[in-house]
C-alpha cells in the first residue's frame, strides 16, 4: 500500500474515533453541568475537560477565561480549530476524499454524507436539546462508519491501518476522559462521587456493563478497572491497545519490529496490571504512563510506515 494512502487511512480512523471521543467527553461534562451546583463548579469541570483533551491552550487563545457555557460550543462546533468535533469530521472527510479510491465506496459515502450533515448543525445553538442531539448524532455517525468499515472493507493492509488508527485514538481517548473525571473529583466538587462516576459510565455507554460485572455501587476503583484493565469492555484501554497490537502485527514491515515490541509491552502492562495500580492515588500516574507510551507508538508508526521508505530492497 502507498505510504501516503496508509497515512490518510490511519488519520481517517483517528479523526472519526476522535470525534466520538470528543462527543463522549462533552457528554460527561454536559450532563454534569445540569446537576445542581454553582456556575463556578461547572466552569471548573469544563476546565479539567479542556485540559485533559489538550484543548485548553487553543481555547484560552480564542476565548480567554473558561466559563460555564462557551467550552461546550468550542468543543462541538469551533470552525477554525481542527480539534473540535466539527474540525475532526472535516479532517476525516478530507482524508477519506484523498483515498476514496482505496476505501470502499460505501465508506466514502458515509463519511461524505456525515460531513455534509455536520455542516448543517447550527453552531449558535440556543437550547440544551440541540447539544444533546448533536452528541447522539456524532456517536451514531461514528458507529455507522465503523459498521460500514467492518462490513465492507477487504481485510487487507488498509483495513489494518484503519484499525491501528482507531484503536490508538480510542485508547488515548478513554484514558483522557477518565483522567478528566479524576482531576475534577480530586479537586473537590459540589457533585457527589456517585454522580460523577455514574455520568461517566453513561457517557461511555458502559453503565449497563458495569452493573452486569460488579454488584457494588459505582466506585472509582471499579470504574477504572472496567475502563482500563478489563478485556471484555469494548471501550477499555486494554481492549483498544490489544486491537492496536493486532493491527500492527498485520502491517509489520522490515523496520517496525521495535514499534510492535513497544505496543506489545504496553499491552502486557495492561493485561498483567493489578487493580491496586488503579487506586485513586496511583491512577493518575498509570493513565499518564499510558498516554505517553501511546504518543511514542504514534511517532514510531509515522516513521516506520507513513514516511516513504526509499531504499530498494
Amino acid at each position: 500500500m502507498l505510504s501516503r494512502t496508509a497515512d490518510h487511512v490511519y488519520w481517517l480512523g483517528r479523526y472519526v474515533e476522535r470525534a466520538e471521543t470528543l462527543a463522549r467527553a462533552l457528554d460527561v461534562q454536559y450532563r454534569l453541568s445540569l446537576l445542581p451546583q454553582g456556575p463556578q463548579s461547572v466552569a471548573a469541570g469544563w476546565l479539567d475537560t479542556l485540559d485533559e483533551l489538550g484543548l485548553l491552550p487553543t481555547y484560552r487563545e480564542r476565548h480567554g477565561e473558561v466559563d460555564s457555557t462557551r467550552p461546550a460550543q468550542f468543543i462541538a462546533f469551533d470552525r477554525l480549530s481542527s480539534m473540535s468535533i466539527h474540525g475532526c469530521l472535516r479532517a476525516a472527510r478530507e482524508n477519506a476524499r484523498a483515498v476514496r479510491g482505496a476505501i470502499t465506496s460505501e465508506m466514502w459515502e458515509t463519511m461524505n454524507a456525515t460531513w455534509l450533515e455536520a455542516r448543517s448543525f447550527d453552531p449558535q445553538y440556543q437550547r440544551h436539546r440541540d447539544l444533546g442531539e448533536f452528541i447522539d448524532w456524532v456517536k451514531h455517525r461514528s458507529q455507522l462508519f465503523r459498521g460500514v468499515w467492518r462490513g465492507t472493507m477487504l481485510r487487507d493492509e488498509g483495513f489494518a491501518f484503519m484499525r491501528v488508527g482507531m484503536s490508538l485514538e480510542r485508547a488515548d481517548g478513554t484514558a483522557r476522559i477518565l483522567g478528566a473525571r479524576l482531576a475534577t473529583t480530586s479537586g473537590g466538587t459540589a457533585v457527589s462521587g456517585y454522580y460523577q462516576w455514574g455520568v461517566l459510565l453513561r457517557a461511555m455507554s458502559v453503565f449497563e456493563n458495569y452493573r452486569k460485572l460488579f454488584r457494588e455501587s459505582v466506585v472509582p476503583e471499579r470504574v477504572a478497572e472496567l475502563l482500563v484493565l478489563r478485556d471484555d469492555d469494548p471501550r477499555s484501554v486494554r481492549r483498544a491497545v490489544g486491537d492496536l497490537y493486532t493491527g500492527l502485527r498485520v502491517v509489520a514491515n522490515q523496520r517496525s519490529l521495535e514499534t510492535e515490541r513497544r505496543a506489545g509491552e504496553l499491552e502486557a502492562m495492561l493485561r498483567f496490571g493489578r487493580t491496586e495500580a488503579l487506586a485513586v492515588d496511583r491512577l493518575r500516574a498509570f493513565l499518564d504512563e499510558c498516554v505517553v507510551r501511546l504518543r511514542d507508538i504514534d511517532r514510531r508508526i509515522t516513521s516506520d510506515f507513513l514516511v516513504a521508505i526509499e531504499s530498494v530492497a
Partner: protein
Amino acid sequence: MFYNEMYAHDGAVRPHYAALDQWLKRQSREWLEQKRGEADALFHRLGITFAVYGEEQGTERLIPFDIVPRVLPASEWRVLEAGLTQRVRALNAFVGDVYGAQQILRAGKVPAEAILTNAQYRPEMQDVAVPGGTYAHIAGVDIVRAGAGEFYVLEDNLRVPSGVSYMLEDRRMMMRLFPELFSLHSVAPVEHYPEVLINNMRSVAPAGIDDPTVVLLTPGRYNSAYFEHAFLAQQMGIELVEGQDLFVRDDYVYMRTTRGPQRVDVIYRRIDDDFLDPLAFRPESALGVPGLLTAYRAGHVTVANAIGTGIADDKSVYPYVPDMIRFYLSEEPILNNVPTWVLREPGHCEHVLANLAQLVVKEVHGAGGYGMLIGPAASQAQLEDFRGRIRANPERYIAQPTLALSACPTFVQSGLAPRHIDLRPFVLSGRDVHIVPGGLTRVALPEGSLVVNSSQGGGTKDTWVLEGE
C-alpha cells in the same frame, strides 16, 4: 433549423424514442421535478462534485444531470462504432509514423512544418518504440450530429480525455431513479468499461512482464477531475498515485509503499505531457516524476496515453485526418470531418475574415470551450476583437462553419424543451480496439447555446444504445 433527436420535422416521434416519449407523457411534471432533486442530492452524497477550494465551507459544484436520456438506435451505433474504430486506428498509425519513418510527411499528405514545428510534437519521442505501436490507448472523440442528421467528428481528444466516469454514474443514476424505463427498453450496458480499461492497460505493459503493476497518476485531489481519477482507480482495483508517490531509480519507476519501493510497469496518467517529468518538460512542475521520460524511453514503463500523442489531436492537424485514413488504411472515411480552414494558409485567412460572422473560430491550442468565437452569436465588438487577433497571429487559429448541432428534449425550468447536445464515445486501443456502446452525452443547458463544455455550464445525459432493431 436543427435536427431534433426525438421528433422528425413533421412532429412524428422517431421510432427509437417512441417508448420513452409515451413514458414521459405519462409522468407528471412535479414527479419528474422531484426525481431531479433526488438525483442532485444523490450526486452530492456520492461526492460526484467539483471542489471549489479556498472557502471555509468548501463549496462544491455539481455538473448538472439531465434525466431525459439520449437514445441511439443499433443501426446508427454500428456506423459510429465502425467510423470511430477506423479513425482511431489511423490516428495511432499516424503518431507512430510521425515518431518513426515520417512517410506521410514525405508523401506530402500532411505538411511537415505543421508537425515538426508544432508545440505538441515531442522530439524526445523520435524513434522510441512503444508496446504494440499504440499511442492513444484512450481516445474521447467528440461527435456531433448536424444538418439532416449526419455525424461529424468535432475533435479527437487523445491526450487525457475525461468524462467517462459521468457516462458510468449517469447510467447508475438512471437505473436507480427510473428502473422501469430499463424494462421498457433493451439498453446496451456500459458498466464493464473499467474491466475493459484495466485489461487494455495490462495488455500494453513492457515486454516480459507477466503480471504488470498498473497505477493511475493524478494531479491530486484539488484537480477538477479528481473524482473521476479516484473512481476509475477504485473500479480497476489499482493504486491512485500522485507524482510524489513515484520515483525513478536506475531507469525503473517505483512507488513508495509501506513495505518499501514497488516496481510500476504501466502508468495510466491523467496529467499532461508538460507536467509529467520536470527534468524533461516544465521544470517547475511539482506534479510529475523526475526521470520518468528516461525510464519510458528505456522501455521500462508504459505511459498511457503515450507521450507526444497530442500531435494527432492538435486542431491544426485535424483537417488531415481523412487523408490519414486513406493513407494508412486505404479506406474511405466513414465519419465526416467538419470542413476546416487553417488560417496559416493565406487564401483561407482572407476567406475567413470576410465571412467571420458565419463561422466558428477556435484557438489551435485552446480546449474546454475557451478562446473560441461563435460568429453568429458574437457582438460586433467581439468580431472586431477576433479580426485583430487573427490578423496578428493567423497560425494560432482555425475556422469552421457553424454547425447546427442536433437537439434532444431536456428537462428545464419550463418543462421539456430541446437543447443542443454532442457525444463523446471512449475508444480503447491496445491489442484490439474496443468501444463501450454509447459514451457521454453533453448538453448545452441555456436555450440556443451551442457550448456543451462543463466548464461553460454544460450538463450531461445518460446515453442509450438500443440493442436489436
